[in-house]
């Protein structure tokens, strides 16, 4: 069975927000709801790095564990979905989620938040009809044999979506090309590595996409 995952290659992410826009467009989420976000650390500094995040469809999902209504379920593909008919908008899933994925259309007195919304891996959700499904949860591209639109439209292919095995193979290959032992979120130790080494590694990272397989 496939285990669907997202993986964002921070070396490649150029903070273009294409994924954010693609998601918004594919799912036509409510005003104020933005299922995917791009986080940039150290903006404008040499160490700047960006990564695109949404729901990561955790294996042992904290949101599922704390939900008082037990409205979450996992599909056979490992996608974490929830039933908006049962959700009471208590916010617990947001408190528990590592990635700030659950969002609410409002935040009012007496804990009035509306129904929780989050990334569905473009797999829709429980509903009677297709129209209702789209209205409540957005696109169901998985049912059409397509991957989430955010990853499909990523211009640098930083954001990968698909079976965990497949996308980690792709990422592993890139890391190998980069020639750095942990080239993903690598810890280049300026003090210890010799300057040419470091330089060569960074060089490799920058060109991994165009280098031919050795």
């Amino acid at each position, binding site marked *: 069975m496939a285990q669907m995952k997202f993986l964002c290659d921070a070396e490649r992410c150029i903070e273009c927000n294409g994924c954010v826009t693609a998601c918004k467009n594919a799912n036509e989420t409510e005003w104020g709801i933005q299922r995917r976000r791009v986080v940039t650390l150290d903006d404008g500094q040499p160490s700047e790095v960006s990564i695109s995040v949404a729901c990561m469809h955790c294996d042992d999902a904290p949101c599922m564990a704390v939900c008082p*209504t037990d409205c979450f379920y996992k599909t056979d593909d490992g996608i974490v979905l929830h039933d908006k008919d049962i959700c009471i908008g208590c916010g617990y899933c947001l408190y528990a989620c590592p990635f700030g994925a659950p969002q609410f259309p409002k935040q009012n007195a*007496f*804990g*009035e938040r509306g129904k929780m919304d989050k990334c569905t891996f473009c797999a829709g959700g429980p509903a009677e009809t297709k129209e209702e499904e789209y209205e409540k949860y957005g696109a169901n591209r998985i049912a059409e044999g397509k991957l989430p639109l955010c990853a499909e439209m990523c211009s640098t292919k930083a954001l990968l979506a698909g079976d965990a095995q497949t996308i980690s193979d792709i990422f592993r290959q890139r890391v190998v090309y980069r020639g750095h032992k942990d080239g993903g979120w690598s810890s280049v130790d300026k003090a210890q590595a010799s*300057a040419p080494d470091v330089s060569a590694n960074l060089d490799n990272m920058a060109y991994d996409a165009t280098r031919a397989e050795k």
Partner: protein
Amino acid sequence: MHTLMQCLQRLRVLGVILMLAVLTAGLVSTAQAADPDQELNQAVGTINADTWREVKNGENFIDTRHDSTYSLINTSGETWRQIRNDWISPGGLIALGSMLAILVIFYLIVGRNDLDAERTGRKLLRWTALERAMHWTVATLFIVLALTGLNLLYGKFLFRHAFGDAFWANLVSLTKLTHNYVGPVFGILLLLMLAKWLTVNLPKKHDWQWFKQGGGMVGKKHPDAGFANGGEKAWYWILASVGLLVIVSGFVLDFPLFGQTRDNMQWANMFHAVTSLILMAVALGHIYIGTLGTEGALEGMTTGYVDETWAKQHHNLWYEEVKDSAGQPEQQNPPVDDDTATANRPN
């Protein structure tokens, strides 16, 4: 004229192209110089302990979501989940379950605390109509909040499987709505009730003796008690402390309007759950003592009047003060609610 303008335009374009060429040449030459330190500083790369700290605490950080203050990874969420699901949730069941068990065993072994003497039929006003209304409103709301709160914590293990999704969806949304709107009303009324009964619940020396004698179970003589005995005062002060925490934490959860962070809400939830479970467990004891546990106590809070014998036995100091106002046995109706209860309350 026209051609001159065109000429100038072309020159300008040429100038721009030239400038770009010079700039590119400059860039290329620095790159060719291959100064590793400089390259290192320009490329993505240095992921160190600071970076991971930023991932967690959201410093040096921008996020494209419009009003997001969320860090990249919220590390406290999983801790909260474990504390709530693995400790508080089973802990609450154990606390409530053991309290019930203790009460049942106590009732079976010790039984009801009966009146030592015959009732005289003379009635003393103990609780005014206002006080009774207050008590029963707060009590009802408390039970409503306790049941809805318990449903939020444990309901999913029971009702969804037993009655299906549609029933559960309605029940749990009603539960949340009720809990979140009744909560603040309860909070205000509880504070008013605490204010009203503050003076009679101030601790006195004889209360210590009351506890040492286990409220009259140890030793022959009944320990001294004013209008409120040691046990009632303990319940009062538990409400005034733990109850206050329930209200404050409930308020934090109920009004997410003051920029509360996820961490604030996790703390509020843990405080709220623990304190409210403590309150529920103690309330079970209070309900037992007020009903099954003590002969003649419940009628005080329902009718407002207690029998002279009951007053003498349980609140001797108070009885001494108010005995003269007791209604005569031959009276058909109890004496009128003339504020004697509030006027004579040594504690």
